[in-house]
């Protein structure tokens, strides 16, 4: 005889840590034992937004904007038939947290998206995923097909495969692509919450953000605040790469010591040259700085850094910081959408200057001037990210710049 599983397992306890990475399943019945289908029709819109507001949830795509304010801005425009876009572009090269959620727990993300849709009064949900993330695309498509059989409310969800390029994930670029245009940023205003997909008010939220939202509705805002700091509550997914033994996605409370996060992934600051926090869109920290900081915006802000999308790159001691910085700035130059003059020319100049620095030229002054000239000049934030990364590299690798300039061999060649 086959045991029929109970619809809701009331014995399921709220997870402590990990949270998002606990109970991973791509099976709907198994997911529903942990997360019973919320009675959306009976739920007044305000409930969800209020819970999210109390939780203090901030976006996990990199900007860290308060999620409840985005929900409110779109909900206020409910007459315009809002749309919810799940941003699964994950264009940050080292990041894989969103792909992990989409692949291993698609129903949690879909729950979050449908709850957000209920909160803002949306009847259309689009899950936008990088066209190269084939496993995530397949997993989400299968999950949607499975849900629509038993849960008709899921019929409003569809999947869109978006071009594989960094700026495609910028929210106006995403909206422009879904509207039939190029996956390139557009001039703001209007922002998507004002006029987005099909000209309708559009909520664009990151995959991880919506997974947290689903857990907040399931376990409550007070539970959410049991982890993290007062200003930045909850846990976050981090993708750790470089000189650590367990490369990959980990879940940590926001505000955990950076050194602990690295140690728990099998790395050590004593074996590191520097740490890139926030990924390509973040900033370099010296090991001394990294030792003193917690993983939260409050601590990282003084270094010009932030948690961003949670990428942490531990640069090994025998690697050359200048070479790595020049490589990332080369990536930036390549990722320019080619729309704004100061970005096209400025990022190319900066990439060239950073390579010159590696080859021993004294390019610091012109690099600083160019960083100032590209900042705030584009339609999107790409040039700002390049300027931030460059500035942090000039500070953290100041001694290496001097070694290269004076013709001494660099750390990498010494090793």
């Amino acid at each position, binding site marked *: 005889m086959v045991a029929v599983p109970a619809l809701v397992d009331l014995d399921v306890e709220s997870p402590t840590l990990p949270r998002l990475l606990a109970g991973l399943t791509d099976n709907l019945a198994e997911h529903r034992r942990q997360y019973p289908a919320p009675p959306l029709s009976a739920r007044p819109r305000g409930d969800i937004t209020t819970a999210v507001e109390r939780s203090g949830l901030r976006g996990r795509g990199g900007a860290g904007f308060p999620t409840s304010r985005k929900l409110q801005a779109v909900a206020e425009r409910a007459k315009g038939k809002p749309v919810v876009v799940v941003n699964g572009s994950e264009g940050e090269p080292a990041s894989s947290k969103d792909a992990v959620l989409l692949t291993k727990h698609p129903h949690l993300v879909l729950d979050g998206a449908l709850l957000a849709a209920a909160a803002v009064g949306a009847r259309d949900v689009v899950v936008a995923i990088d066209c190269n993330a084939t496993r995530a695309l397949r997993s989400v498509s299968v999950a949607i097909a499975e849900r629509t059989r038993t849960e008709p409310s899921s019929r409003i969800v569809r999947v869109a495969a978006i071009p594989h390029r960094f700026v495609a994930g*910028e929210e106006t670029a995403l909206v422009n692509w879904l509207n039939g245009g190029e996956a390139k940023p557009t001039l703001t205003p209007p922002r998507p919450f004002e006029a987005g997909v099909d000209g309708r008010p559009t909520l664009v939220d990151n995959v991880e953000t919506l997974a947290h939202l689903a857990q907040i509705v399931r376990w409550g805002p007070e539970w959410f605040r049991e982890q993290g700091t007062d200003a930045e509550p909850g846990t976050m997914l981090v993708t750790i790469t470089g000189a650590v033994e367990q490369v990959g996605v980990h879940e940590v409370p926001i505000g955990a010591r950076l050194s602990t996060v690295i140690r728990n992934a099998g790395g050590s600051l004593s074996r590191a040259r520097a740490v890139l926090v926030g990924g390509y869109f973040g900033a370099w920290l010296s090991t001394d700085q990294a030792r003193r900081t917690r993983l939260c915006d409050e601590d990282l802000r003084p270094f010009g850094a932030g948690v961003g*999308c949670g990428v942490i790159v531990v640069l090994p001691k025998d690697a050359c910081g200048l070479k790595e910085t020049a490589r990332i700035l080369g990536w930036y130059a390549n990722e320019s959408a080619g729309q704004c*003059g100061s970005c096209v020319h400025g990022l190319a100049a900066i990439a060239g200057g950073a390579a010159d620095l590696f080859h021993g030229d004294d390019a610091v002054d012109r690099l600083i001037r160019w960083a100032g000239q590209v900042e705030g000049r584009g339609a999107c934030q790409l040039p700002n990210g390049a300027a931030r990364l460059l500035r942090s590299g000039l500070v953290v690798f100041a001694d290496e710049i001097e070694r290269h300039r004076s013709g001494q061999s660099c750390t990498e060649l010494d090793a």
Partner: protein
Amino acid sequence: MSHRVRVDPIACDGRGVCAELLPERISLDDWGYPIVDDSPVDDRLLPHAKRAVEQCPVIALRLERIRFRGDGDHRAAAAGDRQAAP
């Protein structure tokens, strides 16, 4: 009622006409693209600003009305939000 100039960086082609006509508010970067100072344009400067807007060959320059103190500051705040990507 005062105004400020704004450039659409996507439309802008870097012809540099605006910097010649309104050097009080517009300078050029190393590649010839306008760096716009968005502080208010007073009545004395307004005719020059209008001319710069009219003369832009790609219609990338705009004159915006500042409706109240702090108007448009949300843009600076919004510029701090990223991503969704950049």
